[in-house]
């Protein structure tokens, strides 16, 4: 049954890909260009945030030791930008059906493609953050290498994980409104439990595995491996297998829940 619905899901995407792209661009425009100076904020906000982090952690607090020869702020931003993309997308996708209720209640529309719209829309913003990160690398004269290409792989991995949790939380939210605060708390815990500001090797080695169970650990480590440590993604095969195992199981659960609830979803929105 899972495989059949999986096939169904991906056929929906293939058939609707043009619509998905257009709706995502529309969503992006609506979310980020509503203000007076409009589109400028899309660039300005990431730019200011990056500059603030460079000021605070690059020139301000010198207490944070550099990671090898790499300034702390570069290491930090690799983790922070990927985590923010994940947590913001998950949080905003939780009530995504309510946001699009004006549409879903009046027009016959494929519900399954709604969460993907937000993921793609936020991807555009993530892209701008990655460009900022490249700017920081340039400022510190850290060269990009062939390993940087792996960012594409790790991004893809995060994308699939995001789809899985988005479908799960957005459909659960319809029957259980408590999902929203639960997701908010989870993301808050995740912010501290994921090695964004701290290094995993500061933890007692016998407890490290606990933190590695978090699938976002793999992504953060991957972003850093690609840009800073120049490690290929197959150097730690067990982590790679664990991540994909986790993601596929989550995807299967979320598709099961979604398919199960689909007949009554519109009535619940």
């Amino acid at each position, binding site marked *: 049954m899972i495989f059949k619905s999986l096939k169904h899901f991906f056929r929906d995407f293939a058939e609707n890909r043009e619509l998905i792209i257009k709706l995502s661009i529309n969503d992006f425009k609506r979310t980020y260009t509503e203000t007076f100076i409009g589109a400028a904020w899309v660039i300005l906000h990431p730019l200011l945030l990056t500059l603030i982090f460079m000021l605070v952690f690059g020139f301000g607090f010198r207490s944070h030791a550099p990671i090898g020869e790499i300034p702390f702020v570069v290491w930090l931003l690799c983790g922070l930008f990927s985590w923010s993309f994940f947590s913001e997308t998950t949080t905003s996708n939780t009530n995504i059906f309510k946001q699009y209720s*004006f549409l879903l209640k009046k*027009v016959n529309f494929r519900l399954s493609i709604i969460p993907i719209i937000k993921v793609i829309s936020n991807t555009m913003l993530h892209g701008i953050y990655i460009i900022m990160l490249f700017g920081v690398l340039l400022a510190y004269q850290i060269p990009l290498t062939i390993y940087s290409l792996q960012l594409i792989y790790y991004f893809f991995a995060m994308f699939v994980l995001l789809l899985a949790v988005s479908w799960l939380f957005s459909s659960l939210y319809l029957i259980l409104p408590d999902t929203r605060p639960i997701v908010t708390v989870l993301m808050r815990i995740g912010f501290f439990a994921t090695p964004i500001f701290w290094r995993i090797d500061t933890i007692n080695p016998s407890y490290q595995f606990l933190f590695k169970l978090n699938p976002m650990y793999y992504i953060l480590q991957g972003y850093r491996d690609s840009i800073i440590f120049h490690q290929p993604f197959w150097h730690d095969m067990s982590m790679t297998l664990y991540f994909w195992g986790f993601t596929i199981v989550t995807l299967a659960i979320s598709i099961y829940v979604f398919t199960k609830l*689909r007949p009554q979803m*519109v009535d619940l929105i």
Partner: protein
Amino acid sequence: MKAVRLINISKFYKLYDSPSDRIKEMLNPFGRRYHKEFYAIKDINLEISKGEKVGIIGRNGSGKSTLLKIISGITIPTAGKAEVDGQLSTLLELGSGFNPYYTGYENIYFYGLVLGISKKEMNEKLPSILEFAELGEYINQPLRTYSRGMKSKLAFSVAISIDPDILILDEVFAVGDEFFRKKSLLKLEELWAMGKTIIMASHSLNNIQTYCDRVIWIHKGRVEDDAGPTSVVERYKEMKIRSTQNIQ
């Protein structure tokens, strides 16, 4: 040729006393039921041929809107099968499918996008939509600032502009001023003449009698009567008189 075919369609809603009951029911290992079933539609079989003008009448809560939503594919029936052949355009209530925060102009394009109409095609349709909707400068204002009448004007103009094979209308003439109503009815007559399938629910028996060649009376989720307009409307009126006498 059939435009719409409904086979044994039922729709029931599970009513829970509190939202937590829904969770309890899902998690209950013994399959204990916490809900009451409410049938909005029960065992409806219906065939509508291409080009037919069907009116749907019935009291509030009789299942008219649910039936229209099932035909449009918005709501999924609990049991049975709905087959629809042709491009649908649905106009349910006010401001169908419109986002209150988009301007009228943006909503037109967004609606087109959702229905898979290209921007180029929409550009071609735009002048006639704007002209028909008579919103003037308001087209650049967000929809939340519109009055009810303005919203329905825009919705109606967009719905007819996409050139549907099947047009579904739910009580669209209850709002809008006299002039716009007249204009819309003329437009509908035009669509009538073009041989489009039209399914409309309305409380205005006059409109139903004038514009439909078949009337379906829905009562408590079932088809009470399905025949030519005069006989159904007469029977419906009789029932109305009888029930008012009961009250007196």
